[in-house]
């Protein structure tokens, strides 16, 4: 992925990541997600947004980021999961900014490249791969209830 495009840059703990602006549908203010018993790892619950029920996925552990519960907003972006395109909400730890930048390809886990913003190299995420990884059930794992 190269070229000039628009990206939403968001903070997660001490790092910043970016996703293609075309994938982002909304930045929602924080509130507790509603929960119910389930066994999918990384899902914190659901939000009701614009007459839709949106899963909330904590992607921080997969990105080796510690957030210490400082989530302030939910970045809601379209992901393709199980062949279906759906919005997924991810807790982020601060306000997002729109950046227009050239993205250079770089091999990185869950990344499609990097962009440079204010002297910082920011990983542009492959959200489908990231959320798919987070919600995949380890094959040998027993039933574990997330609440």
């Amino acid at each position, binding site marked *: 992925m190269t070229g000039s495009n628009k990206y939403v840059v968001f903070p997660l703990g001490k790092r910043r990541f970016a996703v293609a602006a075309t994938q982002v549908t909304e930045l929602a203010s924080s509130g507790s997600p509603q929960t119910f018993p*389930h066994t999918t790892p990384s899902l914190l619950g659901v939000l009701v947004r614009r007459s839709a029920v949106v899963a909330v996925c904590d992607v921080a552990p997969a990105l080796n980021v510690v957030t210490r519960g400082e989530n302030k907003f939910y970045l809601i972006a379209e992901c393709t999961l199980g062949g279906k395109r759906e919005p997924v909400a991810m807790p982020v730890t601060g306000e997002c900014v729109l950046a227009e930048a050239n993205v250079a390809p770089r091999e990185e886990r869950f990344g499609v490249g990097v962009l440079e913003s204010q002297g910082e190299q920011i990983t542009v995420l492959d959200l489908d791969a990231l959320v798919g990884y987070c919600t995949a059930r380890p094959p040998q794992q027993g039933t574990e209830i997330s609440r």
Partner: protein
Amino acid sequence: MNTATKSSSAGEAVILFRIGPYKFAILAADVHEIREYDARWIALQKARKESGVVTLHLAAELGLEAGAEQHILLLRGVDVGLAVGAVEKMATAKKVYGLPSAFAGKEREWYTGLLVLDGEVVPLVNGISFAFQSKAAVKGS
């Protein structure tokens, strides 16, 4: 996007009940009778073996703490009852939302969808799925 799996202008009649801190719903059409929880009745049904009603403790099936059962929902058409906490009331759900695709675990068997009632998200329990899990004989099928 989530899509309504079932809806009609009149909506779906559901029975709302609790297990611990969680609220659940089941289609009223899937329930034949609501009984008070009675351990002796459950034991009696168990003693009847194949002709008795199999009671599943829904809390245990969902990995929740059991022990506060107050009612048994007898499912229609099968010899299976679901022991649950307090049955609260009946309600009408205007729309049943599909479970978001990100949910990929056992919950896809447990629930047929999600309801939003007064802003609260309530899973719609798939009674038939639990009935088949119990290996109970299905009447009339």
